[in-house]
């Protein structure tokens, strides 16, 4: 239990992991990731990879929706851009750049392209607020997919049929198993989360929150709404671009239909479930949003051994589950799982003297 504020320097007071439960949580999380990489079976690795990729993308969505208060329903478009930029870069620069370096260049390239796209898509945010922006980003998602599918870009993107993706190679280390890829994904996901956490300890992130909470008040403090909103969009799109790049490496083939509105909704659902504007929100949210469909799949498998008819029911049930999660959390726990965790942590700190 915390008995007093015993900090002796401002530096100590500015720490993020300011109590031992948080430190314990972090250490066990890192240990857990190591454990998965070392001992997880194929199924666990598969699920963990999917979660890792999602966490990165949802962290990006969190920057724009949770922290800057700008609604976006088009972030799947940025994931698509990241994924396709990676593949196109590999195909175009394959002979020129040596294999071992290619991945190291392709990922930043994909991130940069996505960030640029984010700035373009974010432009309407300069003129309009919330809702208009949601529709503008939604439109952008449709347009991006259209551009990928259309016949003029088919030579590079494969059009509707999709395109095969390359194997990542880090300085000669070819990550050709999912276990190896998990190491890359987990490392980048942890870095991405740390980066976002840092962002909000400094002026850059504080300005985002200021705009969310009261935009005219932010302006009066010298925060340029234009620049800050575009920065937020660029960062958020960059995160999604990174997720897209990993997505492309992870799956053998990418198709435009994987990046449709459904994915955008999933990203939004994850952030609502996890807790908007909270650092661990994406992590908790993604765990739920990935596990619920898996649970439905597993329980269906147990019920009937997976007949074709049941498979027909499974997909819609999973869809309903997403929606129900969004609706349920908005109605009953609008601040998401992070809020529940906060309460638990408080109780833990006061134990055994008080509860709740």
């Amino acid at each position: 239990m915390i008995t007093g504020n015993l900090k002796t320097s401002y530096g100590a007071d500015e720490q993020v992991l300011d109590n031992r439960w948080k430190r314990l949580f972090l250490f066990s999380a890192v240990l857990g990731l190591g454990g998965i990489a070392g001992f997880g079976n194929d199924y666990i690795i598969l699920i963990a990879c999917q979660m890792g990729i999602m966490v990165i993308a949802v962290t990006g969505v969190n920057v724009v929706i949770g922290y800057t208060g700008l609604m976006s329903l088009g972030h799947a478009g940025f994931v698509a851009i990241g994924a396709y930029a990676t593949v196109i870069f590999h195909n175009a620069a394959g002979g020129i750049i040596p294999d071992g370096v290619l991945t190291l260049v392709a990922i930043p390239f994909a991130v940069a392209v996505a960030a640029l796209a984010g700035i373009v898509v974010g432009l309407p945010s300069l003129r309009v607020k919330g809702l208009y922006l949601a529709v503008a980003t939604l439109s952008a998602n449709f347009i991006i997919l259209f551009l990928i599918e259309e016949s003029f870009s088919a030579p590079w993107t494969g059009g509707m049929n999709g395109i095969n993706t390359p194997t990542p190679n880090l300085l000669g280390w070819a990550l050709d198993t999912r276990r190896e890829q998990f190491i890359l994904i987990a490392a980048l996901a942890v870095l991405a989360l740390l980066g976002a956490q840092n962002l909000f300890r400094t002026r850059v992130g504080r300005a985002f929150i200021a705009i969310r909470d009261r935009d005219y008040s932010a302006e009066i403090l010298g925060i340029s709404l234009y620049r800050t909103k575009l920065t937020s969009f660029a960062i958020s799109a960059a995160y999604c671009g990174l997720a897209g790049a990993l997505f492309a490496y992870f799956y053998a083939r990418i198709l435009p239909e994987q990046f449709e509105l459904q994915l955008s909704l999933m990203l939004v659902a994850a952030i609502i479930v996890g807790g908007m504007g909270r650092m661990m929100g994406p992590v908790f949210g993604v765990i739920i949003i990935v596990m619920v469909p898996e649970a439905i799949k597993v329980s269906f498998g147990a019920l009937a051994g997976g007949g074709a008819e049941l498979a027909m029911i499974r997909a819609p049930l999973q869809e309903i589950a997403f929606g129900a999660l969004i609706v349920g959390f908005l109605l009953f726990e609008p601040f998401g799982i992070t809020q529940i965790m906060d309460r638990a942590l408080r109780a833990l700190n006061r134990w055994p003297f008080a509860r709740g």
Partner: protein
Amino acid sequence: MGQLLQFTINGLMAGAIYALIAVGIVSVFKATRVVNFAHGYLIMFGAYFYFTFAVLVPQAAWAPDWLASWQPGWMMDMREGLPMFSPLAAVLDWLANVPRILLGLAGALLCNAALGLVIERTLMRPLMGQSVFAMIMLTVGLISILSGSAQLIWTSDAEFVPSLAPNTPIRFALFGQTIFLFGADLANMVIALLIFAGIVLMVRYTKSGIAIRATAEDQSTAYSMGISVPKVFSRAWVLASTTGAVAGAILATRNGISPALGLFGFSVLAIVLMGGLDSYLGVFLAAMIVGVLEALTQWQLGGEWAGIVPYVAVLVVILIRPHGLFGAKEIERI
């Protein structure tokens, strides 16, 4: 030239249906300040309800024969000796369908109204007074719920649904050009325009319309003036879901029924923002403009390009006129 005219007219007919869909989004926004992202999925339910009552129910074993196909004696007599594709034969075909069309429309209207009410009472009402952001997000969650539920409920492949009016080909000359239309399309346009006009008049002149407008201006003041704001909310949702039912029925006859119908809602959302959210006139014009642009794009560039016209249009309009063509710019009090 002849082609241009033809495609423009096709576009106007599509635009009228967009306007009919848009009216639901605008009405809910006016009353509740919530933009319903799931409106397209309400329409999809309308289409499926119409399919259920106009096709599935009449086909059922217990349904009377006249419901599936009404063939009174005088109609049989008139059919005698008619050539295959004569206009009269088309009208008679339609007449035979009238009972199930009416049943389908009635069923779709009632069921969709109930659906709208249930959504408003169970999901939107508890969030009343809280942030609009949460309410809008809730409609986003509704998208998945409605889309998944429709796939669970209507697993069978959708069949042909009877169109609302006789589908006779109509050929006439305009400015020396021959224009070719289908009767049903024309009727759909008339129905859509009539409903649109009716709602605009209702909101302008009737008591409940004025209640909606007062609530739009200022919820708490309206409440304190004795307007039952919750009632206004439910009315707006019922209005949206019933107009959506008609739109769904029309779309079902035009485009067939599939879960993809929900996507119409997004193009119309784009149109609504383009017109300016709370302006019926602006939204009507935007619907017509997008309808025509789409038809012309389809003519010049092909169907896939037509699909993104509303999205490109809304982005262009938002960048130039942030509050849409006719939207009111809110003066922010600081």
